[in-house]
């Protein structure tokens, strides 16, 4: 009898264990039957089979196939790439729920897993996988299916040029600061596709609001990071981080950091700028019609974007992987990333939502003016030789 989620996970792991244990009994005879028929060399069959139980041999085999830890494939798929980002995104969702609950004197997820509900993301995944994919009758079906995939693809493509340490990166580019922002510019398009394809008035209002928001925050976001570029004279994230060895850019570029933080909140559609998915006004905004794994993919795309923007804030203003040498650089980066993620999550627990006219006034009247002032400060600082 399965009563708790823990028992469910245990049962699935047990089934997997027995499958792995018993499958050779079926696969061995089949393989050795196939050897004479297709004329495969017996030694290669033996090697593959021994590798399946010997991890060192398996690693060697994987490296021979060109999929080892130093290969591009591994980088893109596993460590600095997609899987790692998805893992951080999942942990962020759990951490967000716990932190907001603590702030509001609640307990948050508690029952999945023995300690503070740490298995909740897996439970959510199973829930989303088990749900029906409902496509509205009058929806534009092709675009409705395209939006979740585009959202995830957009989030994943952001990871391409962002380094995690001097040695851990997927690709290096002289314009690695500009490329993520060029890709992020497409995100309102995904929102608009999802909103239009749903053929739902709440979704459509959400999509229009996202477009209005874009006009308010995109310009100050780009100008606020120009200050950093003026100080270092480079668009390369590696060089920007190297330039912060002595002083983090949050000190000379404090105004720029604050503007960038506010525009991150706006870009990620988080409180107090969550107009496109305002739950209390327009159901769930542009996400209204999405169910099951469609919704899961959209959320995953949004949270990978969250991870990337938090990472960019860390690299641009908090000195990236710079830190005392007793810890490896990646650990320093992830520590700072954790702090930035908390900072981005926190307003959702305490602040109310802005109106659209207030948002646009803040964007046009304050943030753009302040970001130009910040650029001016950066020019003065670089001419005085602060860095």
């Amino acid at each position, binding site marked *: 009898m399965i009563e708790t989620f823990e028992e469910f996970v245990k049962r699935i792991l047990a089934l997997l264990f027995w499958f792995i244990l018993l499958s050779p009994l079926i696969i061995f005879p089949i393989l050795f039957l196939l050897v004479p028929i297709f004329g495969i060399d017996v030694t290669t069959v033996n090697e593959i089979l021994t590798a399946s139980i010997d991890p060192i041999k398996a690693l060697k085999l994987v490296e021979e196939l060109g999929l080892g830890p130093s290969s591009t494939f591994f980088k893109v798929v596993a460590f600095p790439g997609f899987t790692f980002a998805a893992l951080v995104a999942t942990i962020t969702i759990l951490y967000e729920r716990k932190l907001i609950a603590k*702030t509001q004197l609640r307990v948050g997820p508690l029952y999945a897993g023995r300690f503070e509900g740490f298995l909740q993301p897996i439970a959510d995944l199973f829930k989303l996988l088990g749900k029906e994919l409902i496509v509205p009758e009058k929806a534009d079906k092709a675009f409705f299916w395209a939006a979740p995939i585009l959202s995830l693809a957009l989030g994943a493509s952001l990871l391409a040029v962002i380094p995690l340490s001097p040695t851990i990166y997927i690709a290096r580019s002289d314009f690695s600061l500009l490329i993520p922002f060029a890709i992020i510019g497409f995100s309102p398009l995904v929102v608009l596709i999802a909103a239009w394809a749903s053929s739902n008035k709440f979704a459509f209002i959400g999509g229009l609001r996202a477009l209005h928001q874009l006009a308010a925050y995109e310009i100050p976001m780009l100008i606020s990071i120009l200050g950093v570029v003026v100080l270092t004279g480079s668009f390369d994230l590696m060089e920007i981080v190297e330039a912060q060895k002595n002083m983090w850019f949050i000190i000379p570029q404090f105004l720029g950091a604050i503007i960038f933080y506010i525009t991150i909140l706006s870009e990620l559609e988080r409180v107090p700028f969550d107009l496109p998915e305002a739950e209390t006004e327009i159901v769930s905004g542009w996400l209204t019609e999405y169910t099951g794994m469609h919704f899961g993919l959209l959320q995953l795309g949004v949270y990978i974007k969250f991870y990337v923007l938090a990472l960019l804030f860390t690299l641009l203003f908090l000195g990236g992987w710079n830190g005392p040498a007793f810890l490896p650089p990646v650990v320093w980066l992830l520590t700072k990333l954790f702090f930035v993620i908390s900072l981005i999550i*926190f*307003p959702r627990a305490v602040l109310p939502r802005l109106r659209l006219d207030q948002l646009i006034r803040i964007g046009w009247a304050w943030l753009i003016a302040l970001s130009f002032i910040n650029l001016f400060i950066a020019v003065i600082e670089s001419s005085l030789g602060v860095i």
Partner: protein
Amino acid sequence: MNYKLISGILGAFVVGLRNVFKRRMTLKYPEEHLEIESGYTYDAKTETGSPGFKGRHILYTDKCTGCSLCAIACENIADCIDMVKVEGSWPTNPKNIMPQIDYGRCVFCGFCVDACPFDCLFMTPEYELSATDKRKLVHTPFQLAVFPEKKGNVKLIPDDRGAYHD
């Protein structure tokens, strides 16, 4: 105006951050029950009620005289007490009638306890009275005579900044 706005935002951040480190007061209900010391009782001689939880009633059948004062007290409030015939012989109860309470109507005001002159009808901390059938909400005198089992496994600890439990 903008100074006020910014100070308000910062104030909200500080309050939220302070809350993160506060102790939670969340009872995991089906697994945890709060320990409640006693139910509501009323001393007829001194005419004073003692503070306590107003839950299910407890009827001391050996003291009940069948005076039906509790039913009269209930008449214009919830009208949930009926005096019913009971089997057996009761030395204090010549008419053999005792109260039967319909918890589908009871409002747990405790006036029946105040009305009882023989200290035989009190209240207990039992509050899990839900039933799947409406008829099961009517508790007979013998059901009322059984003292509820103690379920409380979590103690409430009062503090100078509020209360918490372990």
